[in-house]
């Protein structure tokens, strides 16, 4: 490891270059295996772009959607393939290990579900399917890379890919002023934050002379030289950038507006996928690169996010907006894990992202189905008596809300539980207490929805369209996953903690055992 970094550092001095000129060969085939999912996804994305013009506008949705779905599934499969080739690729650009595999699976699965839940939506909204699915797939490429990249520049590019695709997706309800506005806000603030992130990267480069995660962590902690202030500042700026991406207070302000304006399925996607990826990056930067002195940042930010998110959600009447605030709160819960001991925290955080993805996607799937054409019915009042009008939908929604509250045998419970235990194990009693109080407060506004659905008389005019197959499937998948994580969290957590151990102990290539686990995954 150490040897490698020094080599890396020196390789840019002229003689090094000359040396490499002789020895420059194309990357070995294994390297391609290590980015196989990305390849698959981009291929399918291009396929869509090719097929799109050949089909006519009206009935292209189904076929394109199917292609996209197949693409994601193929990518999922290829992930397990990829998992067999642990190690770095393309000269330390990406590393395949438990951690990256975990997030690959997660992100791609999210994309798949998002695609499923979009089928009906696109038709109703008359949205151009080709670009839509293409953007989702390519965006997924970005997210995947974010999770596996160990090179800040690559991370930056991947981040941009996922972000830009989400900016565009947010603006897809073209006829709605709100949609384009949310897109604009997301875009401007997003690139604003990205600039911070980039500046942070630059300073980190300045401080350590490298942008490779391993190199950085090595440079920061090699010998007994004090960590340069520059590194601190760099960490600060990077934290600002990523904190924005994961919508943690005080950088959360964009989330509610954007979520409210953006198309519901997209919200489902962007509240889970890019967020998960961003958390992965945050983990890499803070934990793996062992960035200095971030503890209290996380602590305060977590406390703020939880409290602000929950308190603001109390009086929301727009369900999408309400869920936006709730996602801020959940980001806060997640950050608690970051404050805990690295290993425990990482595994807890990983599990949380998974559980949160499952339940939130499901919730938004329900919302987007129920919102109907033009997203007319997104206020709390529209949900009155849903329990009577479509019991199944209401029941599933209730289930997701229960999970968000954190009732046992839902994924949400164990997610919260692991975070809590990680926090308590590392004696963060204060933070744990704040978390507990917040989730008590949080129960209230989720409950408001349930109350609406079951205890209020339905208002006549809200129509109930039958649940189409695709959306039904998406919701079913989410239910199953949430349930699975709630009843048998063991495997996932084992895997998470294993890869967390690798990440923290920073042994370059993962051991065979983790890989076998990865395959089981």
């Amino acid at each position, binding site marked *: 490891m150490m040897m490698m970094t020094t080599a890396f550092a020196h390789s840019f001095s002229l003689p090094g270059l000359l040396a490499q000129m002789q020895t420059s060969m194309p990357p070995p085939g294994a390297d391609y295996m290590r980015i196989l999912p990305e390849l698959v996804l981009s291929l399918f994305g291009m396929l869509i772009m090719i097929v799109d013009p050949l089909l006519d506008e009206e009935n292209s949705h189904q076929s394109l959607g199917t292609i996209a779905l197949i693409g994601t599934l193929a990518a999922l499969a290829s992930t397990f393939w990829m998992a067999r080739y642990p190690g770095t690729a393309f000269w330390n650009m990406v590393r395949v290990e438990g951690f990256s595999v975990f997030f690959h699976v997660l992100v791609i699965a999210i994309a798949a579900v998002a695609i499923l839940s979009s089928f009906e939506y696109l038709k109703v909204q008359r949205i151009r399917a080709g670009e839509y699915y293409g953007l989702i797939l390519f965006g997924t490429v970005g997210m995947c890379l974010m999770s596996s990249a160990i090179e800040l520049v690559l991370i930056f*590019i991947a981040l941009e890919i996922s972000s*830009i695709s989400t900016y565009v997706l947010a603006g897809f309800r073209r006829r709605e002023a*709100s949609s384009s506005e949310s897109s604009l*806000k997301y875009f401007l603030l997003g690139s604003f934050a990205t600039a911070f992130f980039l500046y942070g990267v*630059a300073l980190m*480069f300045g401080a350590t002379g490298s*942008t490779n995660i391993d190199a950085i962590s090595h440079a920061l902690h090699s010998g007994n030289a004090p960590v340069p202030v520059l590194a601190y500042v760099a960490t600060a700026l990077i934290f600002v950038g990523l904190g924005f991406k994961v919508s943690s207070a005080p950088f959360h302000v964009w989330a509610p507006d954007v979520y409210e304006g953006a198309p519901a399925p997209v919200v489902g996607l962007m509240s889970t996928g890019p967020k998960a990826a961003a958390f992965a990056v945050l983990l890499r930067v803070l934990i793996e690169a062992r960035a200095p002195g971030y503890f209290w940042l996380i602590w305060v930010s977590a406390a703020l996010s939880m409290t602000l998110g929950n308190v603001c959600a109390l009086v929301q009447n727009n369900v999408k907006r309400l869920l936006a605030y709730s996602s801020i709160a959940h980001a806060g819960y997640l950050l608690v894990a970051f404050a805990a001991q690295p290993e425990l925290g990482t595994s807890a955080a990983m599990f949380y992202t998974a559980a949160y993805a499952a339940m939130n996607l499901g919730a938004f799937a329900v919302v987007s189905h129920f919102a109907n054409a033009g997203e007319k019915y997104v206020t709390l009042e529209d949900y009155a008596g849903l329990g009577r009008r479509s019991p199944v939908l209401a029941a599933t929604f209730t289930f997701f809300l229960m999970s968000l509250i954190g009732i046992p045998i839902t994924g949400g419970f164990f997610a919260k539980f692991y975070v809590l235990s990680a926090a308590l194990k590392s004696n963060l009693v204060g933070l744990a207490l704040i978390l507990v109080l917040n989730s008590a407060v949080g129960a209230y506004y989720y409950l408001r929805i349930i109350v609406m659905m079951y205890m209020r008389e339905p208002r006549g005019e809200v129509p109930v369209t039958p649940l189409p197959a695709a959306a039904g499937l998406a919701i079913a998948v989410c239910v199953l996953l949430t349930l699975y994580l709630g009843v048998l969290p063991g495997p996932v957590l084992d895997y998470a903690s294993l890869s967390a151990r690798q990440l923290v102990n920073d042994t370059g290539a993962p051991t065979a055992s983790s890989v076998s686990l990865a395959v089981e995954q």
Partner: protein
Amino acid sequence: MDIPLSYYLLLSGILFACGVLGFLIKRNIITIFMSIELMLNGVNLSFVAFAAHWHALSGQVFVFFVMVVAAAEAAVGLAIIIAVYRTRETLNVDQVNLLKL
């Protein structure tokens, strides 16, 4: 005679700060977007400077990538601005506030 590195860094910092400031005080969306570009430029400068300091060419390569990203962002961003203009008939950011609270 050499120029202290910190001069370059300072310059880049100033540019970055100007960018942020611009984002805060400008009302025209396009101008705001420009100030983002300004920020990126600032960052670029420090990249180059650090590259020089560490004798690491990679720093310059980063700048290259940043430019690409900037270009992409510009394309999308301006498209978005156009879309907004279509729906709202304004470029004043203060009037783009349907979504609030």
